[in-house]
């Protein structure tokens, strides 16, 4: 039996739903020795900012139970370098590229959207990162004021006809409410979730295990939270959703598919298992064959809510 993993979002066709979460797949070919990038449904880039960013001091990462904290701080070489040195790589690769963007101001969001709008042969969609926990401006702290989020997404929408996803997290406030508002501003879909802010302390020095007090928690530890938000947002608005948050293996991927995720972004798991994406792809195929499901659409959103089973509803 041949299974069809094709995933369609708006006018975009992906050969499969498996992609990589922003910032976990390097800037170009870091994982190409382990995974044939062409096998991925899409690639989501590390977040690009207009100006180069050096990021935060070391240590930037530490392991916590079933996950890790990071405070990288959106280190990247900026828009100009991306266009000159990274875009040509992706042009050759011919895998749908979703560029993650973050601005420190509305005009920077505009500039990023406008720039990538002109590169439609390579860039297929934008993920508007509104929820980085590790930067002073443009991240979670800055975006706490909801009008800033709305100004940013509006600026992006005004400048591009590319498919757009807003990447939000519970750090910003009520995810369901914010998702509704950014959809109203014209975002095509939502990317859920970003890391959750956390802490870890070295008990001998009584100081943070990171150079900063807080970092973003990722990995299996946050998966149940991510799954719940993907489920709720999908149910509430039925818009395209990129799911991320602790997707490590086939079982995780299937759970997210069952609550309706359109794309599955493998994140921190790449650091541990470089071939996690292709392992998951094979696993999804094997599951579908075993369950005799030919079309991924039949699996997507097939979760049976408790209330339908007569066992009381969650909101």
């Amino acid at each position, binding site marked *: 039996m041949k299974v069809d993993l094709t995933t369609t979002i708006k006018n975009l066709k992906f050969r499969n739903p498996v992609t990589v979460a922003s910032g*976990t797949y390097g800037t170009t070919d870091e994982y190409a*020795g382990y995974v044939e990038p062409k096998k991925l449904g899409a690639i989501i880039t590390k977040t690009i900012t207009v100006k180069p960013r050096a990021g935060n001091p*070391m240590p*930037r990462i530490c392991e916590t139970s079933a*996950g*890790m904290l*990071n405070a*990288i701080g959106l280190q990247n070489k900026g828009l100009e370098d991306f266009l000159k040195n990274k875009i040509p790589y992706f042009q050759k690769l011919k895998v749908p590229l979703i560029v993650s963007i973050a601005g420190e101001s509305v005009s920077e969001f505009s500039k990023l959207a406008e720039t990538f709008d002109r590169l439609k042969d390579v860039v297929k969609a934008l993920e508007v990162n509104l929820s980085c926990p590790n930067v002073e401006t443009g991240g979670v702290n800055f975006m706490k004021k909801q009008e800033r989020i709305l100004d940013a997404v509006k600026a992006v929408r005004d400048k591009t006809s590319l498919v757009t996803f807003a990447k939000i997290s519970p750090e910003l406030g009520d995810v369901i409410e914010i998702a509704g508002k950014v959809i109203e501003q014209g975002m095509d879909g939502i990317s859920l979730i970003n890391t959750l802010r956390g802490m870890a302390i070295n008990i001998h020095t009584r100081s943070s295990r990171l150079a900063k007090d807080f970092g973003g928690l990722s990995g*299996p530890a946050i998966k149940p939270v991510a799954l719940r938000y993907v489920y709720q947002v999908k149910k509430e608005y039925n818009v395209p959703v990129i799911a991320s948050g602790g997707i490590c293996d086939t079982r995780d991927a299937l759970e997210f598919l069952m609550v309706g995720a359109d794309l599955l972004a493998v994140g921190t798991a790449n650091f541990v298992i*470089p071939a996690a994406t292709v392992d998951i792809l094979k696993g999804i195929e094997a599951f579908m064959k075993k369950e005799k499901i030919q079309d991924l659409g039949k699996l997507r959103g097939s979760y049976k809510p408790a209330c339908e089973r007569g066992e009381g509803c969650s909101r």
Partner: protein
Amino acid sequence: MPKKMCDEVVSILENRKVNGKYYKLTFQSTLLSQKVQPGQFLQIRINQGNDPFLRRPFSYYRVIGKRVELLYEILGRGTDVLSKKKKNDELQIMGPLGKGFCKTIGKKKRLLVAGGVGVPPLVFLAERYSTDYLLIGTKSKLEVLPKHELKKVKAEILYATEDGSYGSKGMVTALLEKIIMHEDPRGFFIQTCGPKRMMEAVMALAGKYGIEGESSWDETMACGVGACLGCMVQTKEGLQRACVDGPVFKFKDLV
């Protein structure tokens, strides 16, 4: 097309304590033993599942044919779990990763300064390439490697222990200065690996005497392949990734 990288499940041949400080782990792998340079490292997934979650980096200690040896100390949860692994237990290992030490140093005398986790890669280097001195700094005699572990090293091996229980008493950098003062300092090439404070002191001495060299500089890392940007090192060229641009950097390139 980047070269195909190795991520392999291996069986442990041996995992035992060799002295008061180090454990030695041995396994066989055709791929992980190929084209290894001293100073390169491996990323070990200690358990399948989420505890420990991230891989842990280890430098190569010795490669003989297909046999790979690692020497490690218990520094945290990952190495503690690793130390309890038995013969035939499996580990998932990626490698060889990173850039190793420079092997050709012209007519200069190779002088190695090692401490802590920096001892294994420098012993490896001294076994493979002609070396004049291998200086090892430890806290006490308990941490001194058994003689048979060093029998393939052809260099003069000198220990400095902080408590004076073996070799000369004091810091390894005092020993280093004594050696370089006896000869033309510029005739040496120093390669160092160990605690940051030790390497900083070595680099300060090298600067004072105008000696060239390299140090293996690591930071906590997650991926080991240049993706996560967790292990950045400040160099004159800007921030570089310890895991792929290093871990070995030239003294003159480090800030």
